[in-house]
């Protein structure tokens, strides 16, 4: 009989993506065998992340400041206010950020249009994007959704919506393999795609 506390930990770990029952068990035993400080640190980090990290009310990226304040990407004065990069999700934003090529602002949609999964424009942060455009000096909008069917449709939808506002709308160049994921593209490819972006 394994202790209930251990079973509970294994069950929780097994809920993580990519973690099966066996791996969960291995991780749980690792925690058990490690010095108690490790488990305490891990637990504290887990609690802190949910207590402190929220979405930035401006760009909808991650933010750990007080509520109603904006995140570092939005407030960093060295970043260019005139260029805005629209991404599907936070991991894509972080992938672009790792290239160190992009110095403008971000906007995270939290998804893409996907009729098959019941996601329409209202389920994305598109209204917030439009509101944001009203009070910012943005001149170019880079649509960095993935080059798959849904990402393309989302890019087109945004273009039709935003072009009439007199913005320059561009799309990442096709350096990324078709059907590929931004998140997994290597940095050189991503940097090339960014610098060779095309007009929409």
């Amino acid at each position, binding site marked *: 009989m394994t202790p209930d506390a251990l079973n509970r930990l294994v069950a929780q770990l097994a809920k993580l993506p990519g973690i099966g029952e066996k791996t969960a068990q291995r991780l749980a035993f690792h925690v058990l065998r490690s010095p108690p400080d490790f488990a305490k640190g891990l637990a504290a980090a887990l609690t802190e992340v949910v207590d402190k990290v929220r979405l930035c009310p401006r760009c909808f990226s991650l933010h750990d400041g007080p509520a109603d304040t904006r995140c570092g990407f939005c407030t960093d004065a060295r970043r260019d206010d005139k260029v805005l990069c629209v991404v599907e999700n936070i991991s894509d934003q972080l992938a672009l950020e790792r290239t160190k090529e992009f110095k403008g602002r971000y906007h995270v949609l939290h998804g893409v*249009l*996907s*009729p*098959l999964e019941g996601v*329409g424009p209202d389920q994305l942060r598109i209204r917030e994007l439009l509101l944001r455009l009203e009070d910012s000096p943005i001149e170019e909008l880079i649509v960095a959704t993935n080059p798959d*069917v849904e990402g393309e*449709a989302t890019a*087109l*939808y945004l273009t039709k919506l935003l072009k009439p506002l007199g913005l320059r709308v561009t799309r990442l160049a096709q350096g990324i*393999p078709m059907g590929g994921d931004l998140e997994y593209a290597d940095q050189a490819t991503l940097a090339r795609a960014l610098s060779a972006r095309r007009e929409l």
Partner: protein
Amino acid sequence: MRLLSLTCQRFRNLSEVTLAPSPHTTVAVGENGQGKTNLLEALYFLATLKPLRAGRLSELVQFGAVSAKVTGRFLLSGAEREIAVEVVPGGRTALVDGKRAASLESYFGGVSVVAFTPDDLAVVKGGPDGRRAFLDRSVFNRFPAYLEESREYARALKSRNRLLKDNAPVSHLQAWDATLARVGARLWARRRQVVGEVAPRARDAFARIGRTEEGATFSYAPSHLPHVDFAASDEAQLQQALGLALDVRLRRDLERGFTSVGPHADDLELALGQHAARQYASQGQARALVLAWKVAEIENLEASNGFLPLLLLDDVSSELDPERNAFLMGYLAERGAQTFLTTTDAHLVQRAVGPDTVWYRVSGGQVSRREA
């Protein structure tokens, strides 16, 4: 290209088995329902990543198992390579020499297969969707990239159709049109090229086996695309034409709830003389048309690849009349391609058999060597 060995694990009803096929003809003999087609399907799936029979990938996994795996060792331009595909919950994994394939090109590189099944023999008399699928298998054999392209098209089409049914705002609907037009034009161009290559050869082959006065024609052109010279338009023009047609037909499409123009709405047209083969051809002629197409496809692949494709013939002999079966078996023996045949009756394939033919018996999912 040559298949050196084939291993099936937890695939449909087959017990785990490794085959050592002949460089020429390999025959699987067995009663109905024993697993002969399953064996061919394993090889077809390995070479195309598509099941031979319509349906979901998960159907390939043996009842009660969670995954199925097919592995083949191939000799490709002098080098030995192992490709494997595993059906796992939610999808499939393609492996080259034990590592996840970096791209489909690297996976397919040099492997080519043509299958011929009793279902094919029914396409002439059947509906347009059967003929489209028949044509698409040929296109895919010629251009492996077609696999991803047609998937992409299908996904965009399904999304747009869903929005049409839900009466979504036009702004949302039209976001899918550009992808449909771009990928749709690609599918059109690919189909056009393959029909252009295969049709003349098929006409010649039919003249040899059709026992028919009228010549056979195989032609393909998009439906609902008036004012467009299909043969003379390049891909960019086709893309523009499809984009336009989607626009023009939007109201009708909204009323009916589906997209009415594009590669998914076309037909491969077969005719004898002036008459549509679907209404006019006898059953024997209909089968000869399909046989002629397959022979033409094999020759065309040899011309474009520089080597013969693997041939898979599933129980075809029992469906052909003796004379046409004799032609087919004689043709196979003469071409010398690496060939896999299944049959319930070894006599039917006798003419395709040579000194190096390898025989297997299939019974209750067990595959075992047998003497001629």
